[in-house]
């Protein structure tokens, strides 16, 4: 019996889809059977981030309505044969699916896969309720900004009221140089405010933009710092105790100058 994990955030644009793609590819790389569900009906994007947009025939709504069989709608990944995507419908909206239908679908997929990752839409309305309905666990993505942290707090409140979900936090797009000079909240600040368990810290990384351009998850790029962070999250999800490394200072002349300025402040 597999585990269903929803990736959510409340606020849009903080990296839910990128996180879903990378954790999914990371788990598949580690040998697990993985299915990704794009629950953002009407605004599908997980397909392009994964580079699978040209292979879509059927979608989530087709499966739920019984128009297509699950095995016909699932798209096999280009790189890992144990990784599959169930794309969202693009021409429908959130009301095309109910939380009960999602729960039923996810439940049936857990028989076939070790991990079912659900990419949630932004917001706290029906799209969010659909996405969390069948999940055993929730990963909340937040960037170190006031708007994102506030929305994450709201989402954590909703998930905790639902009790069966155990939210874990992924801090995304953290910039070590800004943290160093006191212009960005650090890991401890975020944990203190949100009072939630941490499962990953992903640094801001240009490699994410490049990998999204190409439709190849950064987790496969061994030189990417964000990719390394996703590999660590993957290992933690599999139950391994991976210590949190101190976020690295950028190297080079600018990094050194910033460190000098930071040093004056003591």
């Amino acid at each position, binding site marked *: 019996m597999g585990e269903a994990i929803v990736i959510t955030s409340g606020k849009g644009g903080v990296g839910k889809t990128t996180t879903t793609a990378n954790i999914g590819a990371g788990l598949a790389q580690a040998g697990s059977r993985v299915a990704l569900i794009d629950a953002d009906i009407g605004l599908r994007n997980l397909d392009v981030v994964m580079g699978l947009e040209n292979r879509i025939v059927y979608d989530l709504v087709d499966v739920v309505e019984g128009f297509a069989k699950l095995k016909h709608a699932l798209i096999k990944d280009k790189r890992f044969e144990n990784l599959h995507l169930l794309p969202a419908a693009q021409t429908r909206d959130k009301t095309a699916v109910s939380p009960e239908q999602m729960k039923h679908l996810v439940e049936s997929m857990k028989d076939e896969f070790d991990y079912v990752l659900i990419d949630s839409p932004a917001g706290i309305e029906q799209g969010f309720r659909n996405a969390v309905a069948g999940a055993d666990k929730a990963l909340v993505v937040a960037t*170190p*900004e*006031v708007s994102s*942290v*506030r929305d994450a*707090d*709201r989402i954590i*409140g909703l998930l905790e009221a639902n009790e069966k979900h155990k939210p874990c936090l992924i801090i995304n797009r953290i910039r070590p140089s800004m*943290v160093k*000079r*006191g*212009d*960005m*909240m*650090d890991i401890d*600040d975020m944990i203190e*405010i949100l009072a939630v368990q941490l499962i990953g810290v992903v640094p801001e990384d240009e490699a994410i933009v490049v990998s999204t351009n190409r439709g190849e998850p950064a987790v496969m790029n061994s030189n990417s710092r964000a990719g390394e962070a996703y590999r660590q999250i993957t290992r933690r999800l599999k139950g391994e105790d991976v210590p949190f490394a101190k976020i690295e200072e950028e190297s080079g002349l600018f990094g050194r100058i910033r460190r000098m*300025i930071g040093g*004056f*402040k003591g």
Partner: protein
Amino acid sequence: MSRGGRAMFDLFARVFGREDASKDVAKERLRLVLVHDRASLSPQALDELKNDLVNVISKYLEIDQEGFQVDFSRHEESMALVANIPVRSVKRRTL
């Protein structure tokens, strides 16, 4: 002050510890806004609270339900539940 001058001033102010780092400002603002966010009730829950209050108070006093108002009052760090309950008459106690 010119833009560049302002940036320079900010930098020096920070280096010499005269201005808070912006992350501390962010944390403080979040702390305050989350106190309110977390304590807020949905309009539905607030209605239920109001009905329960009416029922309890009506055991002792005859109140004007039309004029009955319940809301949160917010000040910097604290929050209060404020109810305005017009009383029509006090019921005679049957001891």
